[in-house]
Structure formats: C-alpha cells, structure tokens
C-alpha cells in the first residue's frame, strides 16, 4: 500500500487524471451527443418493447474500440515515462522497491483508471436513459455483461500497454501500439468474428448488444435484434491476458536498464 501511495505521490503535476477526464469526456460527448438527433432512438424511448437501453449501450461499446486503446496507452505512458526520463529505475531498486512492486503499482493505477472509465460509462448510460425517460426496463444483465466484457478486454490491453511503456525508453513505441490497437478496434465491427477475436482490440466489437440479423452470412431483416454477448472469445482472451500478465511481469523483473 505504501508503494501505491508513493506512486500516486509521484504523479503530482503530471495531470494524469485531467488527461483521463479529457479523453473520456470527448468519447462520451461524441457518443451521447448523437442520440438526441437519432429519430430511431427517440421512437424507441417511449416504446416499452423497443430495445432503447441496448441502443444506448452499443454507443460506447462501438466506440470503445477506438478510445480505450488510446486512453490506456496515454495513461500508461504518462505513468511510466517519468521513470525513463529521470533514469529512476536504479534509484527505486536501490531504495527498497523491487520490480514486482513497481509493476504492481503501475498496473494497478492504469487498471483502476480504466475501470473507473467503464463505470463512468455505465453510470452515464443509466443517467442519460433516465433523463430522456426510457420506458423499457433497464436490462441489468446486459449492462453488467457490457461492464464485465469491457473490463476483460481492457485488462489485456492495459497489460500490453504497461509492459511496453515500462520496457521501452522511447514512448513512441507503446503509443504506436495503442494507435494500431485503436485502428483495429475502430474497424473491428467490419471484420468477421474469428478475425476480430484474434486481434486483441477487435474484441470490443463483441459487446455490440444490438444489431441486424446477419445469420447465414446474409442480412435477414432491416429490423434491430438484441444479441447476447458471446463471452467465449472474451474468456479465452482474458485467460491469454492472465498468462501475458505473468510473462510480461517476469520479463520486466529481469529487464536490465
């Protein structure tokens, strides 16, 4: 706990939280500013049988693939960059802190902020839905599925970003990885499920709980259908992420600066 507080102390003047709020704010503004002009959504608001809540959930779900890799890359980079800039690895290790705690603290802070982003999104969905008066009952399971699924994918994304931000002195490398991830995340809804599941960041598209029926490879109708989140690829990704977490941490522990 001491090291975690110290890590937060080191973030003084780094404006990490402000950066986090700006990026998340832009995303939420981008997503929710469209609903007011969306006639389909406005028609669904007063219809108890229409999937208005699901329509709200797919807003952030569709755009998280673009914003979350960038958000994770920026936060991880800002938190790890100060160690590279000040050449503080040796300082920390000679002063009672080992690599394991460094990894733990950095990872915990980035993960906590990303989890906070997911909760803020869920809260915004509920608040916005209530403010426009959606009459449909809130599908709590779907919303929780969105939160859990996003958290599982984000865990892997954070693991990758923290590792590369810690071992690469040049922060352009992890930032580029984040950008590539964002690109994949953004176009992932256009990719077939098998392909997007292999591409880590593409899995955000699995959280689209509303769509058109394209079974058998063809569009079956123009109406919207509610889809259950397919957790199988997410669980596989999460397990791979856990392995990556252990492997990356061990690599970092042995890394010589």
């Amino acid at each position: 706990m001491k090291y975690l507080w110290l890590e937060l102390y080191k973030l003084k003047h780094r404006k990490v939280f402000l950066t986090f709020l700006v990026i998340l704010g832009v995303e939420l503004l981008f997503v929710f500013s469209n609903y007011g002009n969306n006639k389909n959504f406005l028609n669904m608001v007063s219809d108890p049988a229409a999937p208005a809540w699901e329509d709200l959930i797919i807003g952030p779900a569709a755009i998280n693939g673009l914003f979350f890799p960038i958000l994770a890359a920026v936060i991880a980079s800002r938190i790890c960059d100060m160690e590279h800039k000040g050449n503080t690895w040796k300082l920390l290790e000679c002063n009672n802190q080992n690599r394991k705690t460094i990894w733990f603290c950095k990872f915990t802070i980035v993960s906590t902020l990303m989890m906070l982003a997911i909760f803020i999104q869920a809260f915004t969905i509920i608040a916005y839905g209530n403010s426009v008066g959606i009459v449909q009952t809130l599908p709590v399971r779907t919303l929780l599925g969105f939160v859990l699924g996003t958290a599982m994918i984000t865990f892997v994304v954070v693991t990758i970003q923290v590792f590369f931000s810690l071992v690469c002195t040049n922060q352009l490398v992890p930032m580029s990885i984040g950008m590539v991830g964002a690109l994949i995340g953004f176009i992932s809804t256009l990719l077939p499920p098998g392909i997007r599941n292999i591409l880590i960041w593409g899995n955000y598209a699995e959280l689209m709980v509303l769509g058109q029926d394209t079974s058998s490879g063809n569009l079956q109708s123009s109406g919207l259908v509610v889809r259950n989140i397919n957790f199988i690829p997410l669980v596989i990704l999460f397990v791979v992420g856990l392995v990556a977490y252990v492997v990356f941490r061990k690599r970092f522990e042995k890394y010589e600066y």
Partner: protein
Amino acid sequence: MIVSTENLSKEYDGIYRVNDLDIQINEGDIYGFLGPNGAGKSTTMKMLLGLVKPSKGSIEIMGKSFNEKNRQEILKSVGSLIESPSYYGHLTGGENMEIIRRLLGLPRKNIEEAVHIVRMEKQMNKKVKNYSLGMKQRLGIAMALARRPKLLVLDEPTNGLDPAGIEEMRELVKTLPTKYGMTVMISSHILSEVDQMATVVGIINHGELIFQENMSVLDAQRQPYIILRTSDNNLSCQILRNMNPLRTGDGLQLGALSDEQTGKAVQNLCANDIAVYRVEEHRESLEDIFLNLTGKEMTL
C-alpha cells in the same frame, strides 16, 4: 571489512566484462575505483548494489553475504549514485527527497541533514528539471546520504561538472568518512580526481583488477627525481657520473636526492664553471603509474 568480493565476474554475450574481481574495502576508506571507459567499473558497482546479477563469484557487504534474499536489508545501509543522477524532473527537489523518505521510512530530520550536507536548502522548492547538472548531482548525493549510509557508492559523480563543481564534490567526499563515519567507494576515469581524495585505490582494466593498494603504497612507487638544466649538460653528466645521471632532452635527470645531495651536485657543477639554470623536483604522476600498469593502453 565493509565490502569483500571473491571471483566476482559478469559475462555478456560470452565475454567477461568483469573477471574474477577480489575487491577489499575497509571501514572508513575512500576507495578510488579507477579504470578507463568500458573497463567494467559501472558493471562492478551495479553488481555490488544488486542491479546486475553476477555470472559467478560472491559479494559480502558489512559481513553479510549479499544475495537476493537480504539485498533490501543490506541496501538500507548503502547509499548510491550510479552513472547519471536519477530524479523526477516534474517534481521539486523537496518532493524528490520526500519520495526517498517515504521509500525508506526515514524521519524528516534525515532529509534536512542530507540536504544541508550538500547545501541545497534553497533549491528544494524548485522543479528538478530546472536544476543545473551540478545541482542534480548534489540532489542525487543527498538522496544517497538521507539514510545515513555506512557505505556510499558513487559512480563517476563528477561527470559533467565544471571545475568548481568537481572541487566541491571532492571536498564533500573527503569529509564523509571523518565527519559521518562513512566508507566511500568512488569510481572515476579522471586520475587526478581520485589522487586527491582516495585512501585506497583499485585499478580495473579490461574487467580485471590490476592493482589494489593503499594510496601510500602507490605514493611510494612515485619516486621523486631531480631535473637539472645547465650551461653544458654533457659535461655535467660526466662530472656527476657517480649519481648515475640520465641525459634528457634539454637537461639531465638524477634519481631521488636529499637536499644535501642536491646542494653538493650544484656546488660541484659550479666549481667546474658550469652555470646551473634550473633545479626541479619531479614526481611520477598517477597517470604515469597507470600507463605503466595498464600497458599504456588506457584512454585518459
């Protein structure tokens, strides 16, 4: 014995950058660790701090075997400044010191004392990124001193400092054993710097310790000699042949002479109508000894 290593070695890509080092540092020493760039000084110091794992050999610090298990415990009594100073540029000097205080769980008075030793009291509210290199070095030393270490390991602490900064650093290091009871290991490739402050010298070249003795032993090797310049150097050589003179470019070189012997030599030359223009005592420099020890391969 504060530091003792046995066959300490480090291999990189099949090549031993440090090979079978047996370093011995006694309490209260200022151990000057000398060697040219790339000789293995920093690697050795990193091994002593557990930052690099030795390929073979053992390290004992303050009587305890230094290993992964007790590393943190031993390092509580070891201050260090390795290569360039480490700092958080976006924080003030005071905030940087606070990080060290929290990491080590030190009382505030330790920080105040360390800052006072390096005379940085007035700079503590300034962001470190705005410090000069000398100030950053001093902050680095303050961080190392904060725990009141028994052993202080400084790797080229005068790198990049101006002459005034070097002098200041030297005076600071010299006071540490006497005033604060510390043992200092300081590496450098600047020989004159070590010459002026070390009590024991270790010389490393191509990863091997080629010399390790008290400064007094090194001083004894630096025999003084007399250079004479006269109106007739060849004739002077003949007159003083019982002193085994050596003819040099524009004079003659005599061995280590006492004041009386020097006086007699001059008197003798004057009695033979030879004018003595110059009598100079020279002493072999540390550089000369180094070049001899390292087979004149050293880059100085």
